[in-house]
């Protein structure tokens, strides 16, 4: 049953990513050219609702649908890894025009070359795992 719920949420997410055009290389390029409000509107409105909702969950101690306490783990403190890792990610995001969610959406939409991006992204993750202890964090 829970597996079915995850699947339905995923399907919904995939449809939203495709229909919002957040999975379009062109929209990402346009965003980095500051030529349209579209992507900023998507991220900004998601964020505004996200901030509000999480504050409400914390303030009113809202429980999950299964009655469990909802705990938000803070991100580990740090600076270098977030900035440097973020820059690497941003370079790839702009070049491939897709972040991890849209990569999967585009695969389903039938754009086969995105498989190259997916396999390379898995490989990039693997390279990070190998180098992790040598990189500044």
């Amino acid at each position, binding site marked *: 049953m829970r597996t079915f719920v995850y699947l339905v949420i995923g399907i919904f997410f995939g449809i939203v990513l495709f229909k919002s055009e957040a999975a379009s290389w062109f929209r990402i390029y346009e965003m980095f050219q500051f030529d349209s409000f579209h992507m900023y509107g998507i991220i900004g409105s998601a964020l505004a609702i996200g901030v509000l909702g999480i504050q409400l969950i914390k303030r009113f101690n809202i429980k999950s649908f299964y009655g469990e306490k909802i705990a938000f783990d803070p991100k580990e403190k740090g600076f270098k890894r977030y900035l440097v890792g973020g820059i690497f990610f941003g370079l*790839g995001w702009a070049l491939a025009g897709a972040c991890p969610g849209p990569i999967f959406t585009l695969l389903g939409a039938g754009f086969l070359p995105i498989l190259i991006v997916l396999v390379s992204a898995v490989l990039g993750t693997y*390279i990070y795992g190998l180098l992790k202890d040598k990189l500044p964090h």
Partner: protein
Amino acid sequence: MDLIYKPWPWYVSGPLIALVMFLLIMIGKRFGMSSNLRTLCTICGAGKHANFFKFDWKSQKWNLVVVLGTIIGGFIGANFLSADISVNINPDTISELSSLGFSSAGTTYLPTELFGTDVFSDIKGMALLIIGGLLVGFGARYAGGCTSGHAISGLSNLQVPSLIAVIGFFIGGLFMVHVLFPLIF
């Protein structure tokens, strides 16, 4: 009904993405896509080579199911919920792109120059997709998250590390588009 087949505006899409995050939170999970790439490494046996991949991947099975759904959702969105999948970007962007050699701008969902099936026999195009993918995978794990984990989930929880990461995303993206694209294309 007609509106469903058109591209969805930001003020519909953004709140729906927030809804996805809240649905996951309300069933005790967290919204983050790039961690699945690590799980895939572990399934492929990467735990033999690096401790980073030594974890019980079955604990992340739920997120792989979300990924499977995301793939199916892409299929549904493209095949059953769209009349015309060309992306109506700003005319200025279209002319910038055509000066870089992207003649498909404004007429397709993805540039055929990078995502047409010809790319499999085009060394430069293949190389760019590989480099892009490597950077996305490496960068996401180095930064501890991607657009969903940092820009949406992390910032929604007012996390300073996520803000630093998102600033990094933009430094990298702006540098790629404004400095490197004219050299590459």
